[in-house]
């Protein structure tokens, strides 16, 4: 379980969430309803581009209704329709109409397809325009592009490499796994021993009660840390994630993450009677944290009120700090606010939790 959980987590998240480059062999139906020749040319071009990228798995369809049925049947993920008057419009100097049909039941894929297809077709349009301009107005081909597309946009990140979903998600998952192993592991360990009766054996011995919880914390911390590091190793080895920051700082942040959640874990252990209740409380707390703290989705995409909630969750700061260090190569000074907040949260929680725990143990 120690190794399996993070492995499973990372693989699952890694493969389920689509990244820009991961679309390949998406089944797309093409309905060429054009009566003229331009439609065929477009299809040939599309096939030529596709044979290079391997992005789509093209099939043919007759019309919109045919595509609709096929999408409903789950046979294809989208469709392209070349309108009947495509050639005639182009001939008469109007724009040729192309319709993209998307599968609304799968917004993520359909958004991606829409983007990719739009881009492909736009590019084909540009090529066509370049060709037309140079033949009609005798402008040399290498100048025509500047006429049609005067701006050339280039993207450059502050660290080398393209933005990658794994790069984005790995720090968050590390923080999350550490949080989960503490928040589930701690109450589990204590209530299990309570149920077994072995906890009484420790409580009846002349040892400090604090040392019992400390022992549990150390065990769970080790577990959480090992899991976090397994994720890190997987991210680097399998998913090609590159750490730009200091690896020691990453480990320090994971430990800090542990510190900030220990109190919460002890607190829940103290006021829940049995394992079942503890697990339930844990789930209730963990789910919002998982989804709101920007582990899987960037926080900026959320509505403002959700962002406000996210700002109250310690996991948000752990994730942000880890991401800044791992992806952007930030140093201690850049993440000092996050560090302060995590230390603060952990301290307050511990101050509440330890007296509660001592009290709960002598109920």
């Amino acid at each position, binding site marked *: 379980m120690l190794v399996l959980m993070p492995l499973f987590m990372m693989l699952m998240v890694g493969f389920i969430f689509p990244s820009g480059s991961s679309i390949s062999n998406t089944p797309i139906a093409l309905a060429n309803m054009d009566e003229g020749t331009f439609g065929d040319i477009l299809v040939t071009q599309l096939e030529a581009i596709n044979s290079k990228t391997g992005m789509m798995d093209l099939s043919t369809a007759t019309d919109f209704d045919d595509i609709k049925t096929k999408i409903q049947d789950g046979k294809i993920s989208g469709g392209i329709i070349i309108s009947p008057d495509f050639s005639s419009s182009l001939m008469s100097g109007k724009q040729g109409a192309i319709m993209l049909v998307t599968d609304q039941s799968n917004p993520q894929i359909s958004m991606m397809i829409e983007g990719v297809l739009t881009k492909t077709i736009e590019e084909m349009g540009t090529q066509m325009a370049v060709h037309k301009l140079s033949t009609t107005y005798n402008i040399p081909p290498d100048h025509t592009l500047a006429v049609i597309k005067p701006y050339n946009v280039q993207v450059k990140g502050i660290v080398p490499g393209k933005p990658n979903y794994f790069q984005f998600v790995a720090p968050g998952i590390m923080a999350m796994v550490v949080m989960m192993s503490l928040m589930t592991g701690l109450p589990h360990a204590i209530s299990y021993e309570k149920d077994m*009766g072995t906890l*009484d054996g420790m409580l*009846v011995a002349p040892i400090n009660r604090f040392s019992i919880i400390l022992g549990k914390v150390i065990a769970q911390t080790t577990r959480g840390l090992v899991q976090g590091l397994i994720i890190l190793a997987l991210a680097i080895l399998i998913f090609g994630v590159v750490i730009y920051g200091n690896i020691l700082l990453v480990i320090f942040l994971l430990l800090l993450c542990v510190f900030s959640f220990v109190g919460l874990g002890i607190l829940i252990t103290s006021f829940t009677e049995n394992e079942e209740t503890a697990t339930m409380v844990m789930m209730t707390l963990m789910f919002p944290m998982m989804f709101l703290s920007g582990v899987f989705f960037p926080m900026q995409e959320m509505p403002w009120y959700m962002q406000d909630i996210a700002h109250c969750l310690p996991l948000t700061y752990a994730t942000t700090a880890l991401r800044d260090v791992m992806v952007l190569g930030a140093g201690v000074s850049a993440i000092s606010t996050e560090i302060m907040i995590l230390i603060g949260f952990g301290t307050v929680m511990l101050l509440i939790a330890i007296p509660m725990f001592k009290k709960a143990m002598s109920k």
Partner: protein
Amino acid sequence: MIEMNNIAIKAANLTKKFGDLAAVDHISFDVKKGEIFGFLGPNGAGKTTTIRMLCTLSRPTEGSATVAGYDIVKEDSKVREHIGLVSEKMIMYDLLTAKENLKLFGKLYNIPNDLLDKRIHEVLSLVEMEKWANHQIGTFSTGMKQRINVVRGLLNRPEILFLDEPTLGLDPQSTSEIREIIRRINIENKTTIILTTHMMVEADMLCNRVGIIDHGKIVASDTPMNLKRMISKIGTTVVELDILNLTNNMVALIQSLKCVKSVVMKDSTRIKVQAKGDDAFNDIIDTVRQNNGKISSIINLEPTLEDVFLHITGHEVREQISNNVTMAGHGPQPRVKTRIR
């Protein structure tokens, strides 16, 4: 002051409330050094809660107690140094071997390694489990586990050993073995022993003194002999009748007799009757005969602790449990004096 030195446990108005329910209700008692004191009562009477308070595992809501001379609330860590606990749930890890378990819990008492090894050897030989020392606890039978569990409480050489239902769920042979071990611990180590049980026979056999506890209160506390004498003193007789054609009507009629204190159905033909007065026997037999009852045997029983409990509380300890265990237990031969009339 001399008397104080002789006292192992002194409880005064010890009370534990869970919400409105008083699990232990203002109990006061003393336990002398070196004796085996038994809390006898049905499940839920408050025995375990009392033990847990004395072991500092649970804080009393009211009242106070000293264990080995230390206050259970103010000097709880001092108390812990002087006690051992064998609770109802076994305090052992199944994955560890017997020796590892003993070592782990011995370490909690800060016993130096060489001394601890010596003690582990001692306690293992006490229960004749040396050859199983390096086997996982999980592979043991319940009886073997309990032997280790009991001696685990002895590692720190406690002055006072608490045993919560030490023979619960054990087969007859293990039960008598555990009882023998308890007796030896008491005699050889001079350890004061507090045990809880719902088995009358066990309390009778083992304990120097018994506190009968019911609904959180100690309703009687004395030596088993005195408790039993208490019944005979007030002229109570206990008879067991075997009536072949026993009917509910007959039982009700017997119950309604003036001299009869209680009637308990043993099975479909046997009843146990507690009655008072010289004419008790005649009255009961007359009633049965008048209803054409066919008496196949009458046994005059000597009072047992069970009868004491019944007499004091007015209800059975818990019929089915006490019966089965009495039958199965390796206790002393049933004190039955057969006197067929």
